[in-house]
C-alpha cells in the first residue's frame, strides 16, 4: 500500500493558482493517483485522477512526473469557495485498504 505525504496546510488568495504536491515514493506500477476535495460537514468529492504525465478537467490539472513518485494538483484561479481539505490517494488494483491520509487544508482569502 503506497503511503502519501502532503503538506498539512496552504494559504492562498482569490485569483491565484494553488499547487499541492503529494509524495508517494513507493507507488506501484499499476497504481493510479486520485485527488478528492472535502468541504466542512460534507463527504469528499472526486476531483481528478491520473496515471502519468498530465490530466486536465474543468476543475483542476494533475501533473505526474515520469518517475511517478510525486504528483501535483493544480487549482487555477482559486476562489473563496475552493477553501477545503484536499486528499491525495494512491489506489492499486485489489487495494481494499484505501487510505486518504490527513489531507491538505487549503484556505483561500479575499
Amino acid at each position, binding site marked *: 500500500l503506497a503511503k502519501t505525504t502532503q503538506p498539512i496546510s496552504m494559504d492562498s488568495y482569490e485569483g491565484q493558482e494553488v499547487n499541492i504536491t503529494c509524495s508517494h515514493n513507493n507507488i506501484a506500477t499499476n497504481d*493510479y493517483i486520485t485527488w478528492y476535495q472535502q468541504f466542512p460537514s460534507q463527504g469528499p468529492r472526486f476531483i481528478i485522477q491520473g496515471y502519468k504525465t498530465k490530466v486536465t478537467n474543468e476543475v483542476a490539472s494533475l501533473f505526474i512526473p515520469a518517475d511517478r513518485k510525486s504528483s501535483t494538483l493544480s487549482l487555477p484561479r482559486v476562489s473563496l469557495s475552493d477553501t477545503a481539505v484536499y486528499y491525495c490517494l494512491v*489506489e*492499486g488494483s485489489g*487495494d*481494499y485498504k484505501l487510505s*486518504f491520509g490527513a489531507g491538505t487544508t487549503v484556505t483561500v482569502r479575499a
Partner: protein
Amino acid sequence: GAGVSQSPSNKVTEKGKDVELRCDPISGHTALYWYRQSLGQGLEFLIYFQGNSAPDKSGLPSDRFSAERTGGSVSTLTIQRTQQEDSAVYLCASSLAYDRTYEQYFGPGTRLTVT
C-alpha cells in the same frame, strides 16, 4: 439523480448501547465503502462490499463493529456496546464497481456522539 444517502444524520447514544447506521448507495453501484472520520482527522477506511460480499473485514476497528449489505443495495454498519472513542463521522461511499478507475461518491455522513 439521487446521490448516496445516510441515516440518521446525527446520532447521540449512551456508552454501552448498540447503534445501527444505514447507507443507501447510488442505484446500480455494486461497490460500497464505509469510512470513519474523527474530528480534524483524515478518513479511516473500515470495510468495502462488492455486491453483498465483504472480502476483507480487517479494517474494522474491533469485533464490536460489523457491517452487512443486502440485495446489493442498502448497507448497515452496526456498532455494539459503543465506547466514547467510537464518536466520529461515519461516511459511506459507493462506486459503479470495485475498481480504482471508478470514482467514489460519498454520502453526507452520520455524526455519532457517544456520551
